[in-house]
């Protein structure tokens, strides 16, 4: 029911499927076209979960490289996009695992990080400190809202409403049944619906 500005899904899906078939058969140009089409979406998807441009860029590179190297294993080119999302979800999980491991040693690095933060505030390079603050506040609020959700509810919610995947695609990406996805999605949406403060915030916010 939600309105979207993207082109009709069938045409786009057909393009992606055809390009994926060609890329699997060794056509490098087709793969480069797939990157052009899907990189912005995959980058955003990763950024939503890392909130770091540089980390999102690194992970995005990894995702496409992994996809390129594993193309021969792709049995269903029509599911290329879901497959790519699955790689991205796994890479993000690895990233969070590494972050958790690093946080064990964060006490040692706290001072260094503070110095870095003072030297280069977010957004300052673009001459848009206010925008950066607004963005930061937006992501903090999003994080607070997502904090009420379980890990699976968060993932399903983000994939459905921010990454705009269908239930079937989400099930493929997460290797879960559609009914499991729906259960988590209904719960997550119920929590979002009841978070009136957050809903009021996004009505007013203009990042």
């Amino acid at each position, binding site marked *: *029911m*939600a*309105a979207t500005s993207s082109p009709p899904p069938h045409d786009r899906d057909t393009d992606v499927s055809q390009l994926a078939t060609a890329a699997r058969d060794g056509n*490098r140009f087709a*793969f*480069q076209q797939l*990157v052009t089409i899907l*990189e*912005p979406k995959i*980058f*955003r998807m990763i*950024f*939503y979960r890392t909130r770091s*441009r540089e980390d*999102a*860029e690194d992970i*995005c*590179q990894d995702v*496409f*490289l992994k996809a*390129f190297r594993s193309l021969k294993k792709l049995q269903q080119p029509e599911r290329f996009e879901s497959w790519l999302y699955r790689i991205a979800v796994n890479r993000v999980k690895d990233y969070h695992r590494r972050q958790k491991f690093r946080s064990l040693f964060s006490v040692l690095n706290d001072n260094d990080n503070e110095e870095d933060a003072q030297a280069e505030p977010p957004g300052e390079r673009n001459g848009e400190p206010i925008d950066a603050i*607004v*963005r930061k506040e*937006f*992501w903090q609020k*999003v994080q607070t809202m997502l904090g009420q959700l379980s890990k699976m509810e968060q993932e399903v919610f983000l994939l*459905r*409403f*921010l990454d*705009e995947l269908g*239930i079937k695609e989400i099930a493929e990406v997460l290797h879960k049944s559609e009914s499991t996805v*729906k259960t988590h*999605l*209904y719960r997550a*949406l*119920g929590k*979002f*619906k009841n978070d009136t403060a957050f*809903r009021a915030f*996004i*009505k007013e*916010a*203009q*990042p």
Partner: protein
Amino acid sequence: MSADVANHLSEHRITRIVADDDAMHVSERNHLAQCDSCRKAVSALENDLERLRRQAVKATPAPERHFVLPAARSERHRLSRRRWRWAAAGSVLSAALLAIVLWVGDNNRLPGISPTTLPVAAVEDPAMIKAQALAVNALPPAYLALSESLDGGYDRGFIDFLIPPLDDDSMS
């Protein structure tokens, strides 16, 4: 009016419709077409989600680095790699052959005889080498006596019963 109110979509149904509009029943669709209140509830939730999505897109910086495919391997590079593979395989095969030759040569040497201890004539004559080996490795007399006594004790008919001759047609 009270009947309409009683038929309003529940919170759970509104959530389900927004999450997955494919799952909407015909009755729900009909109800939404007629009920302003429920339609507003559904569209309010959808609009908030759409706002969230748009704001998330706006609050995401553009990537400064884009993915670039690793350089394709040239034909020359591929040939060079193939040549290296063949060379490596050849080396391994040669080493294996050499090892086999050495091992076989070592095992063919007759037991108990050192080539350095053989007389010159015996080294030259293979029959002499075998004779020498039999002489050195002869069985003790007790074993020979035992084998003779056993050999003589068996009846030929019994042997034939145990190992039927090839021209036996008793089964036909």
